[in-house]
C-alpha cells in the first residue's frame, strides 16, 4: 500500500502524481493527505491541483517552476507523510426528500431489488459515502460505498432534463446532479442544497476526500431549506468523520 508515487508529465504545465492504480479508500486518503500538505505548503508556481481516484494532477507555471524541481518538492512532501497533523475528513449532511414527484424511480429501484421503498430509503441513507473526486459537470461527486442491495440499471432512454439536486442510482453508484442536465440515472429523491452556485463565495459545496450522508426529510422541511438556500441563509450541517467509520468498505 505504501509504494512511492510515480510522476508523469502532462505537457509542459502540468504533471500527474500517481499514487496507485485502483479505486480504494486507502489511496484516496493518501491523496487527501498530500492535497492537504500541498495547500499548506503554498509552493510558488503551483496554479492548482486536481485530485482523482488514484492521482493528483498538479498544474503549474513553467515560468516559476520546472518539471524536475517540482518533482523534487513533491518527493520531499511524500517523505514527510505522517509527520503532519491532517484534520479528519468531514461529513456533509444532504437533506433529501425520497420518492413522490422528487424521486419518480424509487418504486422501480425497490421492486428491482425485491425490497420495499422504505428499505431503499433506509439503506441509501445509512452510509457515509466517500467523495472520490468531482468532475463530469461542475460539482458532480463520484461517490463510493453504496450497498449493492439497492443497485439498479440506468434508464434505457435518458431523460432530457433532470432537475439540479436530483439524487440518483446507476448500477452500484449513487450521485447527485449539480446542475439541470440530461441524464439516465434512476432518480430516487432530491436535495434542496445547491452543489454548484457560481455566485457563492465557495461555488462548490463538496470536496474530494470528504464524505456525504443523506438525511431523509419531509416535503415541508425540503421547502423550508430550499427557501433558506435561495436566500443564502442555509448552512449545510457538517461534522468530522469519526475514527473507524470508513472501515466498512
Amino acid at each position: 500500500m505504501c509504494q512511492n508515487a510515480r510522476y508523469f508529465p502532462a505537457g509542459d504545465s502540468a504533471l500527474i502524481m500517481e499514487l496507485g492504480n485502483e479505486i480504494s479508500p486507502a489511496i484516496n486518503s493518501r491523496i487527501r493527505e498530500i492535497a492537504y500538505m500541498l495547500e499548506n505548503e503554498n509552493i510558488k508556481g503551483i496554479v492548482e491541483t486536481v485530485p482523482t481516484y488514484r492521482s493528483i494532477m498538479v498544474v503549474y507555471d513553467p515560468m516559476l517552476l520546472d518539471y524536475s524541481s517540482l518533482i523534487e518538492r513533491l518527493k520531499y512532501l511524500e517523505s514527510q507523510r505522517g509527520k503532519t497533523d491532517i484534520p479528519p475528513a468531514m461529513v456533509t449532511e444532504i437533506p433529501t426528500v425520497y420518492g413522490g414527484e422528487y424521486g419518480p424511480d424509487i418504486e422501480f429501484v425497490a421492486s428491482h431489488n425485491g425490497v420495499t421503498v422504505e428499505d431503499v430509503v433506509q439503506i441509501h441513507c445509512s452510509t457515509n459515502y466517500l467523495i472520490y473526486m468531482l468532475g463530469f459537470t461542475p460539482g458532480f461527486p463520484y461517490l463510493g460505498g453504496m450497498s449493492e442491495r439497492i443497485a439498479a440499471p440506468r434508464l434505457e432512454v435518458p431523460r432530457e432534463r433532470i432537475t439540479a439536486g436530483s439524487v440518483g442510482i446507476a448500477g452500484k453508484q449513487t450521485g447527485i446532479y449539480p446542475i439541470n442536465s440530461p441524464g439516465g440515472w434512476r432518480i430516487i429523491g432530491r436535495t434542496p442544497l445547491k452543489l454548484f452556485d457560481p455566485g457563492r463565495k465557495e461555488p462548490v459545496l463538496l470536496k474530494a476526500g470528504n464524505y456525504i450522508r443523506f438525511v431523509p426529510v419531509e416535503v415541508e422541511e425540503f421547502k423550508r431549506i430550499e427557501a433558506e438556500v435561495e436566500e443564502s441563509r442555509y448552512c449545510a450541517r457538517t461534522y468530522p468523520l469519526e475514527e473507524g467509520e470508513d472501515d466498512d468498505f
Partner: protein
Amino acid sequence: MTFKMVVENPGFLTTVQDLGRYGYQQFGMPVAGAMDDYALQAANLLVGNPRGEAGLEITYSGFSTRFEGRGRVAVTGADLGAKLNGRPLEPWQSVVVEDGDMIVFTAVKKGCRAYMALEGGVSVPEVMGSKSTYIKAEIGGYNGRKLVKGDVLESGDKGHINFEGSIRVPDEFLPQYSGDVNVRLVMGPQDDCFPPEEIEKFLNSKYAVTNQCDRMGYRLEGPAIKHSSGPDIISDGIALGAIQVPGHGRPIIMMRDRQTTGGYTKIANVISVDIPLLAQLKPGDRVSFTRVSVEEAQALFREREELLKRLEDYLRSKDKFFNYCVKIRDREFRISVQRLL
C-alpha cells in the same frame, strides 16, 4: 470614457473569453478561456489593455457589430475578412472607431478564430475569477452564453494606457497559421500503454481534423493507434492539449472547454506554445506531431513569454508606428510613420 458595441449579427459562434478560469478544476469546472491565447494577448496589448483582459472570440464568419461612441479596437488571430465600414480592416493593428462605425467579418481566409479587444476591456462581471464564457454551465462572459443579435457590450474604462494614433504588431511577432501544421508534444502520461511501433506510427502519420471539433476538443481521422492492453484507465486529470486515444484508436486533442478528468489513455500532450496553431484549425485541416522533452517544451514556453514581454515593451514604447491614410487624387495610400529619437 467607455463606448458600446451592438451585435448586428452574432455569426457562427462569438463569446467573451479571457485567459481562463483557474482554481476550480478540482471541483470539476473546466478552465475555458481563449483558444488562441497568443492572439488574445496581442489584441489586448494593441489597445493598451493588460494582456489577460477579456476580448471577443469570433469563430468562422458572419459576425458584425456597430459601435456607439468613440473608442479603440484591435482584431488579431485568424483573417476572417474583417471590414470597417466596407473597407478592409488591417489585422493585428489597433484602430479608432467612431459612433456608427460597423465592423463586419466577411470570409474565412486563414485560420478560424479572430479576437477583438476593446480599449478598456469588456465590461462583464467576473464569475469565479474570470470573464470567460463556459456555455455548458451557463457561466461567465455575457450572461453565460454566446452572443446573439441585439446584445450590447460596453467597454471597460480602467486599467488601460491611452495613446495617440494606431499601432500594429510588427511582422516578427506574427504567428504563421496554416491548415497543415506540425505541432510539438511531450509524451505521456500514459504513453506506456502503447507498444513502441504504435507510438512510431502516431508520430509518423498525418491526421485530419474531423467535423467534430469545437472548443472542447478535436477528433482526428487517420491511422488508428493500438493499445498494448485496453484503452481505459481509472480516471485522472486532463491538461490542456492532452491527446486521448479511446478504444477506436483515433486521437482526440483536448482543448479549452475540456472536462477536468477522464478515463481514456493519454498518449501525449501538445505543448503550450503550439496550442494557438491548433486553435486555428478547421475541419479537413491536417496535423502531424513531433516529440520534444519536457525541458525543451518549458524552454519554448519561457521564450514565448519573453516574446510577449518584448511585444508589450515595444507597443508601450514611444517608438511605435503611426498609421495614416492619405488620399491623393482620389487614390488612397496607407503610410506608417515611426517616431525616431
